[in-house]
């Protein structure tokens, strides 16, 4: 009898509780989805990778778990919809080496025909890659993102956006945006200056899109928060000596053509970054991709990518890098693909004389990636 009481008073099994909560959640979402005419949609995207790197310091061979992306959309009514994207990704500072990250939370109000007002955290519509792919490696034509994505492009903005799309015969689109900029995070901002972005594109014929954008931000205290390029914060830590403000301007251009046979993408950035000490730094990047389908589901591809950050730049830091890539994509079906590439990474531009003298040898990498989404 005492034993029975003792058993009853034992602490509850947390694993069973979590399982129960998860079951309730999925049951609820299922019922909710059915009752609301399938208005709630949950998707999952992710990738697994194998890398072999030949570096000047030695060789590395390893498998890795890529970003795991839980993507939710819901129609609240005919004019208002919700989009949420949470990613679990690698973070060396975390004890488990993986952390959850809120990548997008946005409420969209379609106020008139193809014109919308969006509020929340979103991918800054700068260039094609960040606007169309961002975390969606299932949709990437290649294994990796362009280099500019890591350094120059402020990938997220939390704020307000006016959007129009497919307007007129040219299918004109615009995105006007203001929000927390490079020095901010998803909760607060250091200053009172919000970032400004104006992006425009046209789609004059099927599968072709051409666009340009202008982004401005006043970076208070030369601080990189949650919305800068993915690697900028790392570089910033090494350049902590300059604590003044920066006027950051980014001009971008992209042209893309993805047909059932031929694929092409070019995107360029020119960045003007002005500091109190070294004055104006002009940085640039260019990414070019070609793919050609030899079969319905097999696409060999080649790309050339370079980034050149001036030695006057105190935000990103002096950098010159180019990457020549040859690879192939095999679409197993529309929910799963396999890609591999060989890349040569040089500390200089491969085709033109850079102002930087090469100080280290080229490195090479071989990657295999499986990307999925359902």
């Amino acid at each position, binding site marked *: 009898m005492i034993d029975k009481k003792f058993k009853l008073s034992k602490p509850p099994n947390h694993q069973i509780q979590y399982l129960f909560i998860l079951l309730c959640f999925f049951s609820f979402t299922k019922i909710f989805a059915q009752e609301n*005419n*399938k208005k709630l*949609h949950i*998707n999952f*995207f992710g990738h697994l990778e194998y890398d072999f790197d030949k570096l000047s310091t030695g060789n590395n061979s390893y498998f890795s778990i890529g970003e795991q992306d839980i*993507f939710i*959309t819901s*129609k609240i009514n*005919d*004019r208002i*919809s919700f*989009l949420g994207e949470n990613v679990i990704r690698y973070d060396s500072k975390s004890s488990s080496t993986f952390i959850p990250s809120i990548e*997008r939370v*946005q409420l*969209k109000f*379609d106020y008139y*025909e*193809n014109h*919308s007002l*969006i509020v929340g955290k*979103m991918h800054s519509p700068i260039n094609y890659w960040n*606007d*169309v792919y961002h975390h*969606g490696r*299932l*949709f990437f034509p290649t294994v990796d993102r362009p280099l500019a994505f890591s350094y120059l492009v402020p990938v997220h903005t939390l704020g307000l956006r006016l959007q129009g*799309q*497919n307007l007129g015969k040219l*299918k004109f689109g615009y995105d006007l945006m203001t929000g927390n900029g490079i020095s901010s995070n998803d909760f607060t901002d250091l200053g009172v200056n919000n970032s400004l972005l104006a992006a425009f594109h046209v789609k004059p014929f*099927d599968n072709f899109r051409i666009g340009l954008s202008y982004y401005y931000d006043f970076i208070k205290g030369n601080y990189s928060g949650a919305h800068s390029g993915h690697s900028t914060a790392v570089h910033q830590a090494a350049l902590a000596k300059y604590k003044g403000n920066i006027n950051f301007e980014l001009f971008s251009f992209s042209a893309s053509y993805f047909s*059932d046979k031929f694929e092409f993408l070019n995107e360029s950035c020119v960045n003007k970054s002005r500091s109190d000490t070294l004055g104006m730094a002009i940085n640039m990047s260019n990414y070019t991709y070609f793919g050609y389908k030899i079969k*319905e589901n097999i696409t060999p591809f080649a790309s050339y990518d370079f980034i050149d950050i001036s030695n006057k730049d105190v935000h990103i830091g002096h950098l010159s890098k180019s990457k020549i890539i040859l690879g192939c994509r095999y679409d197993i*079906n*529309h*929910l799963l693909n396999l890609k591999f590439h060989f890349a040569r990474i040089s500390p200089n531009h491969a085709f033109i004389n850079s102002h930087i003298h090469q100080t280290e040898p080229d490195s090479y990498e071989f990657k295999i990636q499986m990307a999925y*989404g359902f």
Partner: protein
Amino acid sequence: MGFSKSILTLCFVLSIFGSYTVQGQIASDLLVIANEIGSTNLTKKQVIAYAKGEKNFWPNSKKVVIVLPSAKSEIAEAVALTVYKTNSGGMQKYWLSLIFQGRADPPVFLGNDEETIRFIEKNKGAIGFISAKNKSKANDYLIEVKTD
């Protein structure tokens, strides 16, 4: 003079073909059906634009709700080829990508013509495709499709 007459006759014949319409039919084996979209006829170009998510609302301000055949439907390949110029997997990936970009609301994927007709009956602003053999089951919702 004779040459001008021939040209005029040719123009007349072409204009007849140019305005050729078939009720509901977008391809030889496919019909378009819709519920309260503010019109009973559309051009093929318009049907494709709406089915590709390029318009949020109909002229009567009703929200566009796109109904597409799921992979198991017998008309999936025909719709994918006619509207999206790809196969049914390509059609699904087109939508997965558009939804991921946050640029469109997800369409409703249904397994057969009966489900499509039932859904369109219940939802104003919905547009979808059925097989030509089921024309009699959806007479009230057929859209006249004009060639462009």
